[in-house]
């Protein structure tokens, strides 16, 4: 009997006897350092084996940390939301917030943010992504009083940040797509981000942010993306965060 179970970083190999185990050694020499071999005698009952395996598997399940990416267009409020979540559960912020677009130009991370809601608990690494856009014009930054040199530097860093955020689409376990509910939600950038995550079967929650503003129209987000859960919040004021935590702990586990 040969059973190979692959957890995230550790492979557990169950072999019926030492011969099978040594054969696996030979064929798997590259992974040898990361492989834990356990020999199980043929006399062991199947039920006992299954229950033993389940207990091992449950240990790994409990320890799982979800990499949660915050995606969206620039100025949607991703860092405000990351700060709010991190302040609520760790007591410290993630990054600086600004009205100037592309303030976040490199991924900001908070590890082991443990969110609890409705009797569920989720351990997550919070990844605040740079805003994704299809253009970065340094002249746009100068409208906020930034010098030419600083605007050009900011522009260069912003393009790198966008590339980094796109590359991470392959590495997150779940995502919050943050949208400014005062803006048109049906943009190509939103569609592209959601489409890529969907193609990888990565669970997604849409966050309709800035509901404290008079121009906010979160219903437009629900209408544009009826197949996804939408939570209406104000990251700035902390409105409806409990509902978001409930969604995160139930849908993204």
């Amino acid at each position, binding site marked *: 009997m040969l059973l190979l179970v692959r957890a995230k970083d550790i492979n557990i190999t169950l072999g019926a006897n030492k011969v099978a185990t040594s054969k696996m050694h030979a064929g798997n020499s590259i992974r040898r350092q990361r492989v834990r071999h356990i020999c199980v005698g043929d006399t062991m009952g199947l039920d006992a084996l299954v229950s033993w395996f389940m207990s091992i598997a449950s240990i790994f399940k409990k320890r799982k940390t979800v990499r949660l990416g915050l995606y969206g267009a620039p100025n949607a409020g991703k860092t405000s939301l990351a700060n709010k979540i991190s302040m609520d559960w760790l007591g410290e912020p993630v990054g600086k917030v600004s009205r100037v677009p592309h303030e976040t130009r490199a991924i900001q991370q908070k590890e082991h943010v443990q969110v609890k809601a409705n009797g569920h608990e989720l351990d997550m690494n919070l990844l605040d992504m740079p805003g*994704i*856009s*299809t*253009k*970065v*014009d*340094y*002249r746009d930054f100068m409208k906020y009083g930034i010098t030419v040199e600083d605007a*050009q530097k900011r*522009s260069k860093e912003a*393009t*790198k940040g*966008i*590339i980094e955020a*796109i*590359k991470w*689409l392959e590495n997150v376990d779940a995502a919050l797509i943050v949208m400014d509910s005062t803006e*048109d939600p*049906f*943009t*190509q950038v939103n*569609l*592209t981000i959601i*489409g*890529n995550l*969907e*193609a990888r079967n990565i669970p997604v929650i849409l966050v309709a942010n800035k509901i404290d503003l008079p121009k906010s129209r979160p219903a437009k987000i629900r209408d544009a993306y009826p197949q996804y859960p939408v939570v209406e919040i104000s990251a700035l004021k902390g409105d409806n965060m409990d509902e978001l935590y409930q969604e995160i702990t139930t849908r993204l586990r």
Partner: protein
Amino acid sequence: MIAMNIQIEFLTSSVLSQKAESEKISFIVANLKKGKILVLEDPLTHAEETRLIEATMKKVTSAFPGIEIGTLGDGSVANDIRSQIIRMLGGKPGGFTVIGPSKLVRQIKRDPETLSLFAGDGRKR
């Protein structure tokens, strides 16, 4: 009043279908940098759109600050498979992609069935 020359190229599916993804993206970016607006008969998939955004970001300069893009006939996986089957049967899947350099194309606005392209610098004359 300043006149503005706009070149729009309509690319049939045969122009891009024979190219590998990286070639396809390079071809599109090169044409956008020349100031052309492209209309692709075969809509880009979401994966291709992200590759295009990545490739564009690597080429951003003050003269080429980026692109505007809009796709009708969503490039979801299900739709992509559907498109492939339609093509295998000799048919043509619906939809198209419009891409333009952001210096020329201010915005591509979409609703589920329509794409509107706004060209020019946006100043009232």
